[in-house]
C-alpha cells in the first residue's frame, strides 16, 4: 500500500480561506460571452424570402415559416436546440446565432416575425404584378402578331433570333 496521509486536502482549505471566490455575482455582474457563442437564433426579417429551407431542416421542427401573403417566420424558443443548422442552410444568410441563452420558464415561448409589405399590401402588389405581366404578354403577342403577318414566308430565319430574345426576357 502506498503512503497514505491524513488531511491531504488541507492546502485547498487554507487557500480558500484567503482567496477571492471563483464564482461571480451573476445577475448583478453581467457575463462575458465569447465571440460565436451559440445562444439563440435571430433573424433579419427584411431579407427573408420565406423559402422554408430552415423549417424543413430544423431537427426539432421548432421553426414555422408561412409563405406570403402571411409571410411570417416563427420559432418556438423552448424547442430550439441551438444547433445552428438553420443558420448554415439559409440561402439568404439572414439567420444568425447570437449570444444570450433562452431563460427557462413554465410556458412555451413562440416568437413570430412579420416580413414587411405582407398581407393586403402583398396581395395588391401581386395582383398588380400579374396585371402588368398580362399586359406585357398581351403587348408582346400583339407585337409578335404584327411581326408574323408583315414579312413574307421567305423571312422566316430572320424571325428566329427575335423569338429567342423574347424567351430570354421571360426568363429574366
Amino acid at each position, binding site marked *: 500500500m502506498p503512503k497514505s496521509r*491524513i488531511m491531504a486536502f488541507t492546502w*485547498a482549505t487554507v487557500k480558500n480561506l484567503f482567496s477571492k471566490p*471563483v464564482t461571480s455575482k451573476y445577475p448583478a455582474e453581467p457575463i462575458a460571452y465569447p465571440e460565436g*457563442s451559440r445562444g439563440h437564433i435571430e433573424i433579419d426579417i427584411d431579407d427573408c424570402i420565406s423559402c422554408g429551407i430552415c423549417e424543413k431542416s*430544423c431537427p426539432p421542427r421548432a421553426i414555422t415559416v408561412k409563405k406570403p401573403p402571411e409571410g411570417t417566420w416563427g420559432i418556438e424558443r423552448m424547442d430550439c436546440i441551438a*444547433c445552428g443548422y438553420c443558420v448554415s442552410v439559409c440561402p439568404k444568410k439572414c439567420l444568425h446565432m447570437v449570444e444570450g441563452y433562452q431563460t427557462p420558464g413554465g410556458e412555451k415561448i413562440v416568437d413570430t416575425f412579420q416580413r414587411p409589405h405582407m398581407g393586403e399590401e402583398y396581395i395588391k402588389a401581386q395582383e398588380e404584378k400579374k396585371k402588368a405581366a398580362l399586359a406585357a404578354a398581351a403587348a408582346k403577342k400583339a407585337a409578335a402578331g404584327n411581326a408574323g403577318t408583315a414579312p413574307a414566308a421567305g423571312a422566316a430565319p430572320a424571325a428566329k433570333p427575335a423569338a429567342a430574345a423574347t424567351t430570354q426576357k421571360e426568363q429574366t
Partner: protein
Amino acid sequence: MAKRSVVPFGPQHPVLPEPIHLDLVLEDETVIDVVPSIGFVHRGLESLVKTKDYNEFEYVAERVCGICSFGHGNGYAEAVEKIMGIEVPRRAKYLRTIWLEMNRIHSHLLWCGLMADAFGFENLFYQCWRIREKILDMAELTTGGRVIYSTNMVGGVRRDITPEMGRAILSTLDFIEKELVPIRRTFLSDYSVQERTRGVGVLTKEQAHDLGCCGPFARASGINCDMRLLGYDAYGELEVEPITATEGDNYARCKVRLDELFQSISLLRQALEKIPEGDISVPVKGNPDGDAFVRLEQPRGEAVYYVEGVGDKFINRFRVRTPTFANLAGLCETIKGAKYADVPLLIVTIDPCISCTER
C-alpha cells in the same frame, strides 16, 4: 438465517444525476443480488432517424447524451462517411480529436466531482468542478456551446480553431494540469478517501472480459482496451498509450481516470502542435447506401455505432451501443457481495450515463 429483504434503489437518489432503478436483494447488510431496470428517459432516438435527413440527424445524434455529446456526433458522422466513402480533410480530423479530448477532460472531471460527492467529500467536489469550468469555457470559446458542441457534420467540421484560441486552450491546459496535481494526490493518497475506495467492488480481469466491460472500468481491471488505438480521427498520428491498472477496485478506477486526464492534456498539446493547415470540410453529395459499424472511445468507454442507409436521404437504421450499457453487467457483478452502504459509490464508479444508455 440472515434476514432477506428487497430494497429499491432509485430512480431518484441523491447520488444519481440520472434515473436508473435497482432492486437490491439484501441479506442483512450484504447485497446478494441486483435487478436493474432502465427506460425512465427512453426517447426512441433510434426510431427518430427515419424521419430526419442524414445531415440533420447529426445534431440529433449529438444529443444522445449531454456529457459525451461530441463523440456521439462524431461516431454517427464517421459511420456515414464510411458508407459514402468520404475522406475528411486532415485538419478536420485534428479538430475532431481536439474536441473529443476536451470532452473527455470535462467528463472525467465531472466524474471526479461526482465521486467525491458520493463519498461525501464536498470540498474536493467543488474543486474538481471549479477546474472543469475552465475547460467548459474553452469549449464555448471554440465551438459556441459549453457541453453540446454541434460543430461536427458529415464531411468535416463547421468551425475552425484559430491560433489565438489554440493559445487560450494551451494556457488553460497549463492551469488544469497544475491544479490537478493536488487533486490527484488527495484522491489517491488521502486516508479517508482510501477507506472508501481500496478493495471495494473488485472486478477481476476474467470477469471484466466475460461481462464485456469497456472503457476505464475495464482498464482498471487490467484489460488493455482502448479504441483510440484504432487510429480514427487523428489518433493514428498521436501517441496514445492505454492507461491500465490491475487492482480492479474503486481505487484503480479513480487512478485510471485521473491519469487519463493527464493523458488527454498531453494528447491535446500534441494535437494543437501537429495540426495541419487546410480545409475543414468537404462537400457531400449523394445519399448513403450501405451499412457500417464504427467504434470509438468515449470518455466512458467503447461506443459502437451502426448506421444503415438505403440510398435515399433518410437513414434506415441508427444504433448506438453506449459504454454504460456494456458496463451495466459489470456494475451488477461488482454490487453483488458489496455492503449496502457502498452501492452508491459503486454505481458512480462505472460513470453511469443513463440517458445515453436508453437513447
